[in-house]
């Protein structure tokens, strides 16, 4: 990852360590110190809040900027995160998807990036390490063309700490795809500008609308850039089975049941699809690469013919249910497709072929609830809920679960 980012020639890299992104920035520090990135400045900041703030200052000054974070770190930089998108700064950031505490959990799920889906940042999700690498190159190009920041999401540990074969891009190829950054406005004494003024009710709505318009513009741009990418690098940035840079589509065309998912779990689902196809079930998987902007048209067109859709999510909205599925529902409005949400893999719980298979079988049998938590320990939950009915207990749920362990 570091090598790909380095090939994009960032001028400023600012980072604060957090598992599981640390080795990316560590490698970049080494690359910079060895002089391999020219005058690139690597800034060791003292918090993620500062990391994004340093990125803002550098980007506004006309430098191509990169940073990386995960989970708690992403939350700690939420204020400047919105600031960056509001100011239209083309910062690229890796989010090594990791659960958000409490309870503290360092393993993979999508709750961190999902919590920031409305921040105005473009969000791309990688299905494997090749895609993760390629999407960073695409990200810088998209960011600089629409003048919006982009976060490239890759599953923490599952992808960040996996070793697999990938093709690294050649510097010359990257240079061709990514011309030097020429910012729209920058902090330049020869042409002074004031950036970041308070905008009142008379203009705020328009500014916000323009942010939305830019994201919609990106929906058109990404497929075009994806084509440019193929021509130059000989493979699709969105990865295997990529359709248009926005979604990937495997065995979907004649599928009756389609699973929709983001990130590395797509790979596991593809194995289930193959298995079940052998047994005669017409199942397929649609992967979403661009979650923001959400590719309503691509999703609708790809999935419209199916009877059932199962959205596999690695995050959820407490109090209501699925996050991605509600976006999918919007795409599939006015169809009679049955849509279910399967929340799986929270906090790093492995999403296994067996459990995905189980979900699909339930769907076939029409016994799949609208919202299901895959591999949930129902017995444990029921015991705890029963205990709560007997005696109200305040405080952390995780610790409460343990309290009666000894008394059983």
């Amino acid at each position, binding site marked *: 990852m570091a090598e790909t980012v380095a090939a994009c020639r960032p001028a400023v890299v600012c980072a604060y360590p957090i598992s599981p992104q640390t080795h990316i920035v560590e490698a970049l520090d080494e690359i910079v110190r060895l002089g391999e990135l020219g005058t690139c400045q690597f800034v060791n900041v003292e918090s993620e809040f500062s990391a994004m703030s340093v990125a803002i*200052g550098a980007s506004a000054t006309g430098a191509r900027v990169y940073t990386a974070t995960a989970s708690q770190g992403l939350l700690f930089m939420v204020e400047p995160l919105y600031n960056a998108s509001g100011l239209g700064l083309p910062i690229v950031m890796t989010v090594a998807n990791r659960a958000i505490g409490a309870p503290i959990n360092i393993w993979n799920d999508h709750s961190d990036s999902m919590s920031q889906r409305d921040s105005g940042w473009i969000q791309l999700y990688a299905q494997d390490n090749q895609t993760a690498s390629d999407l960073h190159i695409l990200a810088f190009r998209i960011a600089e063309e629409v003048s919006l920041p982009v976060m490239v999401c890759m599953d923490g540990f599952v992808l960040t700490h996996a070793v697999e074969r990938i093709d690294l891009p050649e510097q010359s190829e990257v240079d061709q795809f990514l011309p030097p950054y020429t910012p729209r406005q920058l902090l330049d*004494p020869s042409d002074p500008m004031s950036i970041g003024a308070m905008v009142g009710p008379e203009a705020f709505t328009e500014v916000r609308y323009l942010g939305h318009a830019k994201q919609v513009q990106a929906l058109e741009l990404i497929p075009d850039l994806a084509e440019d990418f193929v021509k130059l690098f000989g493979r699709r940035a969105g990865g295997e089975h990529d359709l248009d840079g926005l979604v990937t589509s495997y065995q979907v065309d004649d599928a009756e049941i389609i699973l929709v998912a983001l990130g590395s779990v797509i790979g596991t689902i593809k194995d289930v699809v193959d298995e079940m196809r052998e047994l005669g079930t017409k199942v397929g998987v649609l992967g979403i690469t661009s979650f923001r902007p959400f590719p309503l048209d691509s999703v609708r067109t790809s999935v419209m013919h199916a009877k059932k859709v199962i959205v596999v999510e690695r995050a959820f909205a407490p109090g209501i249910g699925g996050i991605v599925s509600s976006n999918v529902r919007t795409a599939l409005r006015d169809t009679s497709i049955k849509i279910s949400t399967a929340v799986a893999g929270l906090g790093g719980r492995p999403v296994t072929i067996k459990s995905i298979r189980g979900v699909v079988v339930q769907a076939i049998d029409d016994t799949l609830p609208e919202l299901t938590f895959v591999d949930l320990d129902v017995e444990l939950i029921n015991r705890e809920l029963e205990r709560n009915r007997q005696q109200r207990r305040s405080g952390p749920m995780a610790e409460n679960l343990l309290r009666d362990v000894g008394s059983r």
Partner: protein
Amino acid sequence: MSTPLKFYQVGSFAVGNRLIDEADLSVQSSTSRSNSLTSGHRACQGCGEALGARYAIDAAMAATDGKLVAVNATGCLEVFSTPYPETSWRLPWIHSLFGNASAVATGVAAALKAQGKSDIRVVAQGGDGGTVDIGFGPLSGMFERNDDVLYICYDNEAYMNTGVQRSGATPPGARTNTSHAVGEHPGASFTQGKNLPLIAMAHGIPYVATATVADLHDLEAKVKKAMGMRGARYLHILVPCPLGWGSRSEETIKLARLATESGLFPVFEAEYGEITETKKIRRRVRVEEYLKPQKRFAHLFGANGHSEMLSAIQAIADKNVAKFNLWDSEEADTNHG
């Protein structure tokens, strides 16, 4: 330090100023000053911050030949200077958030360095709230990394833009809307305070200085000196706020002077953690003279006044005088009453 002359500046075209060597004239008195914070901004009448910022930034522009970028924290200065779609700033200027001016400035400096444009310098500015409280972490980081930024704190001793609430810089006894002058212990608590200049010195950075809007020439000189250095530099300027302090708008400069002369606001310079220069008090005054004109200290006076608080504040002043060696009674100018 400067101000070797003992008559007051009265403006660009006063006879007195024409007699001085041009090099000793203030930047503001020059017709070719950059006017970086130009007129039309919406500051209150008598705003100490507007005055301080105007002098400071123009001095920085003069020192850097106009090659300067300013990063501003959220606060009065930011709000009154950029009433969208207008701006008073005539230099490149960015406002990001409340607590990150120093970090954003770090980013600007890093980008300029990467671009080979280190001749363009960076100044960050924020109020006491944005510097001492919410911006403390990033500021310390900037100091620790010795990033090439001059950070200027305009200290009016409370969160003024949000309606006068206490900050870590609010002096003991002062009334604010979150330290009301009611109850047994009216006004801000008597804590040990948060002395940012001393904290900056503890980071061992190249240059730390305090200044007030009572001595604008000195303020300009300090900015000039700071811009002649590289690395992390910190300037803390006392800027009275008539609205928040409950003082008369025409007394802003006078109050700043009284703050110094009472010993409550020591004026000094330090390099790499050691004090190098101290401004001696010319005419020592008791704290009452400084506090009385400010309604935020009204509860200390009068029939039901908390005179014990007055004594406590005097003790703070005495301690400062001793600690910073602010008053050589032999050298005091006794000609001025």
